[in-house]
């Protein structure tokens, strides 16, 4: 233990059920005890449990994600920050990422999807970018399932209401239906932002004695345990976990966006990080860890919406529309003026230290004093056992089609291929007045404001293929995304991904994951189409039924001159149709 440790009033022992409820295995708990040399406090247990959850630590996936190609001359920022950044030339850059909000959207489709969109947009504007395009990749259960209708309409209106209110166009996405998603829908939201490549903001809190500042909405008891919930398999008792639903407030997020961009135009921010899953805990740990400093928070200063919130609750709250920043000393009044103008909360809640420890004080007591090294980089990493799965692509008995026309008709009537106009008409896809290719085509395209350059975006994966062969299916998803971008005339630049799978503790699921990562990696390497950001969502399983492996790919490309963009519509009578490829 370092000298800097403070006096903590820790209990003698914590009940086993409590530890299990926090999703920590006995081994993991033993590690914490060893690390601390004592029993953790409840607040510490909460902090560790969220930091070591699958959602935050990527403990099952990390070793495999490392194998993905992430470099290229176009890459300004690869995985590791809030979002990836690619070069668009002339000092312009695109920032993008995709993220899942699967479990919350199943429990409360409207709010779950809305807060998913809010979260991914925060990831993008935390980097200093103005969000300019949203996409969403949705998987629902079979259209006949009793819940599907309710889920579709809730998810779509949640995505729409949040993005529409933010004034960011939703320019495309994809939607599939399959009975294997009956109990686990997937809501993957992607956001693309634009910034100048010399004005990128990162999360590292470099420097000691710097003010740690909280801005945005007040903290309530929303979503406590959301991060652990997102990493736990569902069963019929999960309805009990309902009060953890977070409610989105896109209006406040719009103010937060404008206030952050206004402050970012000044030269006062050292590090900035949005509070997403595991809110104050993960944001402050990440900032301190990346900056190589310690951090001390005084929770008495945290703006709270509810009375008598405990340290545990404040550290684990997932209230939305909040940000944490580390400022240059003395810049507080300037920053405060901007946030007050936008009618947002602003509070200095802590300071960076040289102790390497994460210290939480509340009402005169030290509620947590943990070594930062144990929380972030020291989180467990598992090489979970996996077994390869035989490709299941041998065609079963397929009844003979009675002619191409009727087959075409039948295909067009399927829920996966039918028009998605009902969905994308609920999304404002024209706000910002730069949408040059609207939904309905292969890729959506927005102009870089004030230029002729276009950013093309596409989301793709065909879960059916991945269920047959995860390796080939993931390869195909990358290739399809690449084709969709090129088909509007864009040069594909890079991808983000959202890896949605079942329970990784089952070797055959882990096998699917491994195969998909390998397939993605192979395709990305072959196409010089690196991965610059991404997200993993595991445990998409209900009562032992897993979703088909669903590695959703979100790609971004550059169109040097939108006047030369290619369109889907046939333009003139007498145009010649050509098939290329084999």
């Amino acid at each position, binding site marked *: 233990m370092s000298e800097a440790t403070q006096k903590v009033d820790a209990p003698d022992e914590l009940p086993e059920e409590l530890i299990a409820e926090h999703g920590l295995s006995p081994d993991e708990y033993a590690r914490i005890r060893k690390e601390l040399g004592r029993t953790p406090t409840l607040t510490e247990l909460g902090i560790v449990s969220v930091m070591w959850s699958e959602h935050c630590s990527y403990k099952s996936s990390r070793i495999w994600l490392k194998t993905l190609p992430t470099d290229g001359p176009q890459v300004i920022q690869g995985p590791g920050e809030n979002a990836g950044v690619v070069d668009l030339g002339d000092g312009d850059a695109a920032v993008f990422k995709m993220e899942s909000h699967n479990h919350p959207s199943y*429990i*409360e489709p*409207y*709010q779950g999807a809305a807060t998913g969109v809010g979260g991914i947009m925060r990831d993008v504007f935390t980097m200093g970018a103005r969000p300019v395009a949203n996409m969403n990749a949705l998987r629902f259960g079979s259209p006949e399932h009793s819940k599907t209708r309710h889920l579709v309409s809730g998810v779509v209106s949640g995505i729409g209401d949040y993005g529409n209110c933010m004034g960011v166009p939703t320019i495309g996405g994809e939607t599939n239906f399959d009975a294997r998603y009956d109990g686990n829908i997937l809501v993957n939201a992607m956001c693309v932002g634009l910034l100048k490549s010399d004005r990128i903001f990162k999360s590292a809190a470099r420097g000691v004695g710097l003010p740690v500042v909280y801005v945005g*909405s007040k903290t*309530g*008891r*929303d979503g406590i345990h959301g991060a652990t919930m997102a990493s736990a398999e569902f069963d019929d008792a999960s309805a009990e976990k*309902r*009060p953890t*639903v*977070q*409610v*989105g*407030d896109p*209006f*406040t997020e719009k103010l937060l966006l404008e206030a952050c961009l206004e402050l970012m135009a000044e030269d006062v921010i050292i590090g900035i990080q949005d509070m997403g899953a595991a809110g104050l805990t993960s944001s402050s740990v990440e900032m301190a860890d990346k900056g190589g400093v310690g951090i001390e928070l005084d929770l008495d200063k945290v703006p709270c*919406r*509810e009375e008598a919130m405990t340290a545990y609750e404040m550290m684990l709250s997932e*209230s*939305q529309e909040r940000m944490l920043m580390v400022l240059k000393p003395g810049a507080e009044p300037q920053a405060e003026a901007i946030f007050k103008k936008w*009618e947002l909360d602003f509070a200095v809640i802590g300071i960076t230290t040289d102790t390497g420890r994460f210290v939480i004080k509340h009402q005169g007591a030290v509620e947590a004093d943990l070594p930062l090294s144990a929380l972030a980089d020291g989180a467990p990493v598992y090489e979970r056992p996996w077994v390869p799965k035989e490709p299941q692509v041998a065609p079963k008995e397929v009844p003979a089609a009675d002619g191409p026309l009727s087959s075409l008709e039948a295909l067009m009537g399927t829920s996966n291929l039918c028009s998605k106009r009902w969905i994308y008409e609920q999304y404002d896809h024209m706000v910002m007045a730069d949408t040059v290719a609207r939904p309905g085509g292969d890729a959506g395209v927005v102009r870089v404001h004030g230029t002729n350059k276009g950013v093309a975006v596409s989301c793709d994966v065909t879960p059916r293929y991945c269920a047959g062969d995860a390796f080939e299916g993931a390869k195909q998803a990358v290739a399809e995304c690449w084709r969709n971008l090129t088909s509007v005339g864009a040069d594909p630049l890079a991808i983000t991904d959202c890896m949605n799978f079942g329970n990784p503790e089952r070797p055959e699921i882990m096998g699917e994951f491994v195969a998909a990562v390998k397939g993605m990696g192979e395709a990305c390497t072959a196409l010089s189409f690196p991965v610059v950001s991404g997200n993993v969502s595991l445990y998409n399983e209900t009562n032992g039924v897993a979703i088909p492996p669903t590695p959703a790919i979100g790609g971004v490309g550059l169109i040097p001159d939108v006047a030369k963009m290619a369109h889907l519509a046939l333009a003139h009578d007498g145009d010649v149709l050509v098939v290329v490829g084999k």
Partner: protein
Amino acid sequence: MKARITITLKPGVLDPQGKAIEGALHALGFGGVDDVRQGKYIEVEIGESDPDRAKAEVERMCEELLANTVIENYSYELEAA
């Protein structure tokens, strides 16, 4: 019978609308105003005159459609036509 149903957010659930209304009331000079919460009010004429059956029907409507019981509570009054 007529049912008058009030649907409110559960305590602790964030109420962005209430918050914004509170801000607007302050700006309009209603300084002492606090704790504004917005809910829904729904009136339904039900073709049921037996109070017990009416109650059961209204509750079923609230549970199945009118209230989002994940985040909302409901209450109601019945009034004979």
